[in-house]
């Protein structure tokens, strides 16, 4: 949408949180969702571009992540130390990150430094230098972390689980790449990444803080209007999680086994998404109240941490869970996970459990609105997920209307105890690999 002057469309006021979401469109057509909050002289912004590490070229895994860690290491006429000193001296917080499906930035500044803060952001987005020294330094740091991860039970387990579920698909790769793939990345790759991916077409922006729409419009133009309007990056091939009831034991000499398990789930835009949210809360999502928590931790003391979560992706989806338990009791824990999976799959769920899950999921939502950066994150997520501006008001209704019958239907659709792929990292007794 293009317009002369800035346009503000006040669409939604979320009464439960006392926040009003405004749509700001800058004179040159950059759109941001804004929540004005003048309590403190600062502002938070989050933004995201389409496409993350899933689009890294074969053999150059970790490119998006390396770009994210080096874009703020020197830009324009400022080398790494000069750029970082400007940020530090004015307490400007700027971080980029690459996920499996997107590339995003978080940004926070005091009001009095907003001009310079937005200028530094523009430089990082449009003229990153990728000088040899910082790129080599950050590569070594990432590579050192990757080597350490080879011995960290959590990292080993999740790598193995994604490999099992996604095989040769790009989702099986780690966002950070490998030691070898990082070695293969050249400066030209980083420059090309910025040229093709840091673009306006799929840009989503959320801003919260001490700023007016007019002023924000000016800063959006200065910062983002110069980005190219590239075509959206190609979407990666759709893939179904290939769970087959495998058991994969990765032997590590540790006293406690780390267990991760999962199979296919559902996407964020699936009509059953909110029902699945309620179902997952009952199974393993509710931190002190879920069934897995009660059976594995509270009643039997088998684990300190246990839980499950929905893991929607753009081109696939998962339902995953994890637990950590002593080697001697792994098989007992796995029996309970499978039994609880089966029980819910078979429709054994009460109205009370559903009511409790619903009041939790609606009542806890406003707790996300306790800092400017967390609200900015909600604003970006709403746009990325194609939710309407009045979503904040509608969400309770989506959850409120869910019935016992809905949850039974979706449990039957989603849960498949015999298909769960399970990874155990440790020295579990009485559990053998069945890959």
């Amino acid at each position, binding site marked *: 949408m293009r317009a002369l002057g800035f346009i503000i469309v006040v669409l939604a006021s979320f009464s439960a949180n006392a926040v009003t979401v405004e749509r700001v469109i800058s004179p040159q057509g950059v759109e941001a969702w804004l929540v004005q909050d003048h309590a*403190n002289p600062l502002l938070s912004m989050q933004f995201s571009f389409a496409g993350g590490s899933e689009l890294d070229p074969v053999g150059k895994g970790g490119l998006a992540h390396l770009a994210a860690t080096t874009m703020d290491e020197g830009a324009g006429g400022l080398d790494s130390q000069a750029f970082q000193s400007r940020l530090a001296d004015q307490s400007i917080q700027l971080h980029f990150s690459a996920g499996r499906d997107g590339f995003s930035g978080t940004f926070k500044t005091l009001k009095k430094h907003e001009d310079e803060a937005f200028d530094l952001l523009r430089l990082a987005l449009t003229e990153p230098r990728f000088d040899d020294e910082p790129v080599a330094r950050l590569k070594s740091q990432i590579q050192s972390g990757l080597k*350490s991860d080879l011995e960290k039970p959590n990292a080993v387990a999740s790598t193995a689980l994604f490999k099992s579920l996604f095989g040769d698909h790009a989702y099986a790769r780690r966002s950070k790449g490998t030691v070898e793939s990082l070695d293969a990345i050249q400066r030209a790759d980083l420059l090309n990444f910025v040229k093709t991916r840091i673009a306006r077409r799929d840009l989503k922006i959320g801003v919260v803080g001490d700023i007016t729409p007019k002023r924000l419009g000016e800063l959006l133009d200065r910062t983002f209007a110069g980005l190219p309007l590239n075509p959206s990056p190609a979407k990666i091939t759709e893939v179904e999680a290939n769970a087959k009831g495998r058991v994969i034991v990765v032997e590590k000499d*540790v006293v406690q086994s780390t267990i991760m398990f999962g199979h296919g789930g559902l996407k964020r835009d699936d009509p059953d998404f909110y029902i699945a949210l309620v179902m997952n809360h009952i199974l393993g999502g509710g931190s*002190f109240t879920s069934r897995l928590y009660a059976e594995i931790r*509270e009643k039997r*003391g088998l684990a*300190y941490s246990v839980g499950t979560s929905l893991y929607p992706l753009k081109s696939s989806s998962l339902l995953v869970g994890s637990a950590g338990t*002593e080697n001697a009791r792994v098989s007992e824990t796995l029996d309970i996970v499978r039994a609880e999976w089966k029980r819910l799959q078979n429709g054994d769920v009460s109205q009370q459990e559903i009511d409790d899950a619903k009041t939790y999921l609606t009542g806890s939502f406003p707790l996300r609105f306790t800092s*400017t950066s967390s609200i900015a994150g909600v604003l970006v997520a709403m746009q990325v997920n194609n939710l309407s501006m009045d979503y904040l008001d509608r969400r309770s209704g989506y959850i409120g209307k869910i019935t016992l019958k809905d949850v039974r239907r979706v449990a039957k659709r989603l849960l498949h105890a015999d298909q769960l792929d399970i990874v155990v990292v440790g020295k579990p007794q009485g559990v053998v690999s069945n890959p």
Partner: protein
Amino acid sequence: MKRALLTLAAISLFAVLPNRSHAEVFNPETYTLKNGMQVVVLPNHRAPVVLHMVWYRAGSADEPVGKSGIAHLLEHLMFKGTTKNPDGIFSRKLAQHGGQENAFTSHDYTGYHQTVAADRLEMVMALESDRMTNLVLDPADVKTERDVVLEERNQRIENNPSARLREQANQTLYPKDHPYGRPVIGWRNELASLTREDALAFYKANYAPDNAILIVAGDVQLGEVKRLAEKYYGVIDVAPATPRRNLVASTAAITGGETVLKDARVSQSVWSQSIIQPSLTNGDPVRVTALEVLSEILGGGSTARLYRALVIDQKLALNSGTYYDSGARGEGRFVFYASPRPGVDLDTLANAVEAEKQRLLTDGFKDGELNRLKTRMLSGAIFARDEMKAGAMTLGANLAAGHSIADVEDWPERLQAVTEQDVLDALKAVISEPRQITTKLMPKGAAQ
């Protein structure tokens, strides 16, 4: 992670508006109930949400000898129930109302907190005040929860070489039997034999209104908090808590030296040097603040001197920095750390860190360097006020460790007053302090 464990790490005090002659940090309202319970209120009306916390001036450093881990085990057991609210009703009821909760234990304190819609504050106070004195423990529940904590220990310590090294090294930094020398979660053999009676004894000795601090932050009115606090906490009438042991009086010798842990699961070596330094408990406030500035100039992130020298210029390290905890109830620690690049040995790294200390001592500050640091540190205040939880955590941790609200609120003035000479004096004290240790985490088979 729920029911988490805090280590001795300080909750660092970021604070305040610059350019004000009398700057304040969080501007809390505070008063004390007749039974001695301190109440702190931090209004913040962004969202209709309230954070309710109760802190006990009791942590693992207050445990009887031989009972390490009991403070933290009790923290877990506090979720089991009371006569009025049995069988985990607390958590269930809170979740039904959309609330979130957690608890933590450190050497110096134990804290319980809930975040919930502001109109549910009374419900939460009714529940939390009930379990201050009415806990009921079933022996079977204690045994099961002890297993949970043993798994927590496996997850946090046994499975983690750097945590195991830290645990070993702390015994050499503090005199024998000093409570900071033992882990918050407890030694495995002691933890495994803790009983219901141990938990109840610790509970009776320490959980009482005169030993507790109530902090309420968020969308609340002062008068309403006061009314509710009096109704629910003000009526609790039990024997006063046992006085706390002095943690800074020890003159006993420490083991000191070097602790090395080599493990097949380590691929990246790490070097550290921990040095005992005063905290707000026993330090001159000027010295304590100067130590905070020292930590910022040498080790505060990727523009600080250690990072610049070791990582960027000399290319010896992948990372390097410092930290200092001024908030401990006992003495504090000043820590230097660095991770070498491949092929660099740890002693070379240690020498390079030493050289940076000497360079600061010899050459002093660059023009404007101190002011830039101060401005940066002061800006943190506005950011801290943006998070509903920051003020509650900072004030709670300081009060529970025996410090005052003024220690927090006057920080900007103390910082503004720090001179270059104060920082150099602090550095001299760090260098000459004999109570210090070195740790080395290395791959198995590495040459030392």
